[in-house]
């Protein structure tokens, strides 16, 4: 398994990754998130030995990736779908990777069928769309049936059916006990599949926790309550440790207490409850909370005098 210890990567003008510690858990999909320039791709490149850390260590099953005898069996990676020799056909590309890894050529045909490129297996990849190249990259990552699958922006360029297929694939891989690390800007996609979330911003580790834990900690998650005696209920809930805000005359927003406990307290004190709804923030909201003020590249409105463009 991948273990990252005190990893720092500095370039002449910036620190891309600053002293991060991570462990990629097996059997779960880990979403690797962060704004542009947060250090996600740099971290992935360091894991694969493509970039050297300034300090710290990354090990795969206790060894640096470059020391592994059968690296493609440990980690299957797709970092850049355009990093292929477009003069080759998909079959030739995968055959080269299978040859290096000493893998049976039957696996090449199996994967070509799996990624849906069997019909174009003997066509030059120069004619392929970005989405098709993504599929080749995904096939390449899976060639060694690796213990860990690592993908950088794998949803980019895929059509709707492709996105659905990849989502299912990644979930299936975790069912086989494999670790999956996926970076993506498409937060809705990550939300669909991720069990854990790692968030980087400006090279710092902002969060490394399960999705449930993250939602529980978020200030955007709350329980909305309507009752016949809202002010009294508010007092009692606060006395029991909740944080309660009155947003409308008869509507409370409760944080730091779950709906079940609120219901029990209301019942025990004889209040009528008209609404008791859990509001879970989307990953996009959670992400925005976490990286607020920590982005390097932030756009501005073209017309500052107009609040909205439309």
């Amino acid at each position: 398994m991948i273990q990252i210890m005190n990893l720092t990567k500095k370039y002449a003008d910036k620190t891309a990754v600053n002293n991060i510690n991570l462990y990629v858990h097996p059997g779960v999909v880990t979403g690797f998130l962060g704004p542009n320039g947060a250090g996600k791709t740099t971290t992935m490149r360091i894991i694969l030995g493509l970039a050297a850390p300034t300090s710290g260590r990354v090990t795969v099953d206790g060894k640096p990736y470059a020391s592994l005898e059968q690296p493609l069996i440990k980690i299957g990676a797709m970092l850049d779908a355009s990093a292929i020799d477009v003069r080759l056909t998909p079959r030739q590309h995968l055959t080269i990777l299978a040859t290096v890894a000493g893998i049976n050529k039957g696996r090449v045909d199996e994967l070509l069928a799996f990624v849906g490129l069997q019909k174009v297996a003997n066509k030059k990849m120069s004619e392929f769309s970005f989405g098709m190249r993504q599929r080749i990259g995904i096939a390449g990552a899976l060639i060694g049936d690796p213990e860990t699958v690592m993908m950088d922006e794998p949803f980019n360029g895929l059509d709707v059916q492709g996105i659905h297929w990849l989502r299912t694939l990644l979930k299936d891989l975790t069912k086989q006990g494999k670790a999956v690390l996926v970076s993506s800007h498409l937060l809705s996609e990550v939300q669909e599949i991720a069990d854990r979330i790692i968030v980087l911003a400006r090279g710092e580790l902002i969060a490394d926790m399960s999705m449930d834990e993250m939602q529980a900690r978020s200030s955007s998650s709350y329980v909305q309550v309507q009752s016949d005696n809202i002010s009294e209920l508010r007092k009692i809930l606060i006395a029991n440790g909740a944080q309660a805000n009155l947003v409308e005359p008869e509507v409370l927003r409760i944080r730091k207490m779950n709906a079940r406990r609120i219901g029990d307290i209301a019942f025990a004190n004889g209040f009528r409850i008209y609404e008791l709804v859990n509001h879970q923030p989307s990953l996009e909201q959670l992400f925005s909370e976490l990286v607020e003020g920590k982005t390097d590249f932030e756009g501005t409105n073209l017309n500052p005098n107009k609040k909205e463009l439309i």
Partner: protein
Amino acid sequence: MIQAIRAEWRKVWFPKSSRLYLPIAVISSILTGLVFSFTTQITQNRALSELKPMEVISANMLGVDVSTILLMLFVAVQIGKEFQGKTIQTYLTATPARSRYFAAKALTFCLLSLAVGIIVALVTLFNGQLILSATHRQAVSASEVWQFAAGCIAMPPFYVLLTVCATFSSRNTATGIVAPFVVMFLPAIAELFPKTLQNTFIPTLPASAIHTLSGMAQKGSIEYTGILAAFIILVLWVLLSSALAIWNFRKKDI
């Protein structure tokens, strides 16, 4: 390592362009050898019939020089493309030990150039003997010819290895081509320096070692180093260039 070499061979042989380029390089090298031998009137101001038998063979064998240059271009383009197209990222995830990756590539291209060198040398040698027999002249003795051919055959793998090293060091096709060319033409540059410097410098150059191996540099000539020393000089050039290339390749991020 064998798997890595096999994969490298497939990288060379899979693209259609390579499958076309290599035979064309062999054929054009052989044809160029013939052209050199039939144009001595223009290039050396002597008719073919006026040339000594060894000079006829030598003119044909210039085809090996041409094949060396064509192979250098091919190798620099192949490796340079991996760096410029970032395909090296994909390949290094499969072979992350960079020294092994370099060695597999160097060995593959070395063997390829050796094979091309042998084919071109044998055919050009045969052409030379054929011309001599067609002009009713005595063929060159086997021992003399074989030493010459063996020396010539050393040229493609040597300069191809320098090209591999230069391209890995610079990660750039153009530099990968220019650097071994500079080494190839160092004797011409050396001639610009005083005689004492030439005496020290020229015997250490690969061209001198190749000329010694092929028997073109004879005892008493400034280039002559002796067979063993010539061999050691070529090995040292390759080892030092490889060490520099591996150091550079390992040190920098991809």
